[in-house]
């Protein structure tokens, strides 16, 4: 099946964060398989986030014997390192080609939501997730579960035979694998016993190790099975249950396909995912090669997730913020401060992202950027100049030269029409055209920028 412009645009919106107009034009007429194959190929190499190194001052355990002043200094250095990790990742996405991998890394880092106390471990767990993001879920689950940052965050370091701590086991079953309703409180307790002994240590580098002394090796009864289970056994048993496949596939469907789950499609995908032994790449193939994926019901109907909006806009307008804090604030306003989930359940999604405050922010940001931040000027948005103020100004600049280039060969009317379709998709083009006819669009000065500004403020721009 040859892709129309609408379908090609759709694949790139969902498999990544959108692509340039000229790139998109060059893919029309290819098949979905060809395009998706190329997308996967561009994501085959794994580009790690390398904001801080192991020998960095804040990468090891919290130093002992510091004076109060030294402790404050250390905490500031540590906080700055966290910002570095976060922004190195965000900024890399503005220019990366590895879109599918980064998209799925965002997905899995929400699924395995964690808050790290150590910035190096934060970066390392992010890289661990990225490595398996398009691969084998069993490997991803095991590596994430055994990561020092996760063991620390969910208190498994303190889960011992004599005094089990259930936090890790609970979230493992509720969030990582089976999902609510598929296990009992008793199963949590038994799983916690099985996970005793899973610890981490630092001896020059951070590593997982199995602590026999604190492991409870008595028999446990878990999901109806009895045995002297270890954590690895718990992983096997939960993966053997189809409920795990369904739970995972439901989340992937909501993330990539639609805010409305479709039971039949999800069941079919989950069956295949289970049969494939939880191979993430095959799941993605199944989704992107399904006919229903290209239906009118699906194309252009999903509310853009936080990063679909922010990275998408960042790439489109080539946003640059020389200072760090504005980019952090922008993440908070769109509702996803990467690597800083509000709680273990991850970040909100779908309609939860849209209320008058957040929607106005999403609509206003491009307006401010285009009003003030082009032609070597700088845009300023919100907050005050007082650095103590909780709401910090968002300042930066945008560069429209590429986007001008892409459309400058066309006569004005065609350029504007092509721009409409490119920015809003086919459905949006219809709406925008009718608004122009009804006199909604007023323009003076640079008509291209004014027009772009109005398009980016339309509610239609919030869909993909």
């Amino acid at each position, binding site marked *: 099946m040859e892709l129309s412009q609408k379908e090609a645009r759709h694949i790139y919106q969902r498999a990544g964060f959108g692509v340039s107009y000229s790139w998109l034009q060059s893919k029309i007429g290819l098949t979905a398989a060809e395009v998706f194959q190329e997308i996967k190929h561009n994501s085959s190499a794994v580009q790690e986030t390398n904001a801080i190194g192991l020998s960095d001052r804040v990468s090891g355990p919290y130093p002992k014997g510091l004076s109060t002043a030294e402790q404050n200094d250390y905490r500031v250095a540590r906080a700055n390192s966290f910002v570095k990790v976060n922004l190195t990742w965000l900024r890399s996405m503005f220019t990366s080609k590895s879109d599918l991998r980064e998209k799925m890394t965002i997905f899995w880092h929400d699924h395995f939501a964690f808050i790290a106390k150590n910035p190096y471990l934060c970066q390392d767990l992010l890289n661990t997730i990225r490595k398996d993001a398009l691969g084998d879920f069993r490997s991803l689950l095991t590596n994430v579960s055994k990561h020092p940052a996760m063991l620390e965050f969910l208190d498994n370091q303190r889960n011992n035979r004599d005094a089990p701590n259930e*936090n890790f086991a609970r979230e493992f079953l*509720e969030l990582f694998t089976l999902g609510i309703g598929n296990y009992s409180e008793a199963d949590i307790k038994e799983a916690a016993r099985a996970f005793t002994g899973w610890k981490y240590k630092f001896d020059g580098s951070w590593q997982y190790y199995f602590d026999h002394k604190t492991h409870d090796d008595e028999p446990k009864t878990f999901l109806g099975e009895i045995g002297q289970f270890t954590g690895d056994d718990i992983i096997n048993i939960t993966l053997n249950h189809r409920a795990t496949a369904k739970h995972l596939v439901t989340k992937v469907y909501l993330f990539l396909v639609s805010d409305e789950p479709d039971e039949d499609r999800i069941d079919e995908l989950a069956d295949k995912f289970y049969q494939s032994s939880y191979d993430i790449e095959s799941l993605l193939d199944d989704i992107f090669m399904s006919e229903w994926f290209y239906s009118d019901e699906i194309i252009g*109907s999903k509310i853009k997730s936080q990063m679909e909006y922010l990275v998408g806009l960042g790439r489109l307008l080539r946003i640059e913020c020389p200072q760090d804090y504005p980019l952090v604030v922008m993440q908070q306003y769109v509702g996803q401060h990467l690597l800083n989930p509000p709680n273990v*359940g991850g970040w909100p999604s779908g309609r*939860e*992202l849209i209320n008058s405050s957040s929607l106005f922010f999403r609509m206003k940001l491009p307006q401010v950027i285009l009003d003030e931040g082009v032609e070597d000027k700088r845009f300023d948005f919100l907050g005050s100049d007082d650095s103590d103020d909780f709401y910090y100004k968002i300042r930066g600049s945008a560069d429209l*030269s590429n986007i001008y280039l892409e459309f*400058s060969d066309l006569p004005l009317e065609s350029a504007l029409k092509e721009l409409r379709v490119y920015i809003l998709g086919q459905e949006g083009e219809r709406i925008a055209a009718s608004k122009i006819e*009804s006199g909604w669009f007023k323009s003076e000065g640079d008509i291209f920028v004014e027009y772009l500004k109005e398009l980016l403020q339309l509610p239609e721009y919030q869909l993909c």
Partner: protein
Amino acid sequence: MKVNRRKFIQTTSVLGSSVLVPGFLAQLTNCTTPQRSRVAHDINKLVVIQLSGGNDGLNSLVPYQNDLYYEKRPKIAIKKSKVLAANDEYGFSPQLASFKKLYDDGLLSVINGVGYPNPDRSHFRSMDIWHTGGDSNHHVSTGWIGRYLDAKCNDQINPHEAVQMSTMLSRVMNGEQMNGLALADPFNYHNTVPQMVNADWINNTPGPADNSNLGFLYKTAQNGYASLDYLKSLSKHYTSSIDYPPTVLGNELKGIAQLINAGNNSSVYYASHTGFDTHATQINSISWPMKVFNGGINSFVKDLRSTGALDSTLILVFSEFGRRVEENASGGTDHGTANCVFLIGNQLNRAGIYNDIPDLSDLDNGDLKYSIDFRQVYGTILDKWLKVDSEVVLKQKFEHLQFI
């Protein structure tokens, strides 16, 4: 690289005839009516403060004469000598000195043993249950405050009737037809409105009126715009001079106080505070969240008292569950069940310690047994304070309590 943009620069304005279509009022539900002027101090206001993570009630209101309490918590129990005694049996954690003061002033009612049947110890599920007011085996998709808005719609109501001080709107604020308004920065709100969203656009824009995502986006923009002028006019009326802890909660409470004191006619406000999930080294980890909470409440009540607004304001503080009675091996506590709830105001019928904590010798698998269903608290507030039929909102009648 400079691009030749001359062809794009024009001075023509593309102005056509404005097409009059029914304004946003038609596109919103028939539940909204134009704001009638109501004076803020005439309206009974509810401020809900959510402590996320499961606040340890037993270490907040301490049964300092109870041997079992000390037996079960050798490391983390609050020492008798440190407790701020309220009466012969109970006292406050030393970190909650403001609460002790409120108690002494007759402005605090502590209701103990609040929970629900078949308690769920998952953060999400239990918070969901408190948000929706549903039974623990039901999944309800609307929140109790959202349904309060639905129920109130035949009376005077405005699009900002219920305000949440955040950029995210929680499920508690979603009704069948009405939603609360998320306001991160109320007095700066007018600065956040996109240039394109003006009366002209609102009235002429042919956005869909259905329940598609696009319809939802248009409706949200329209609702946000509807409150704009009103909120902007309020900003001239009051600026707080009270110091609040410079934190998320501090900012949220300050925002609420400013709105209330400026005369805003919303009847419900919602704020939240995190950090209460103390699985390990509880004594350390609870310290900062408590400090912020204590300081925030202190400033907030002071602020409301300064204008007399406290006379018509009731504050409810809750958490999604308490914690297990026995401490764990990490110097912390695991998720529990029944917990205490705080009510603050100067219209309380029964201030003080409302009832006893559940029996520490008669536990449910290590957890406190509830004696008061949290929907009784909601129902009492809905009927007696917000003057809306609680049975409509909660789908059941729950026995009233006597705190108001």
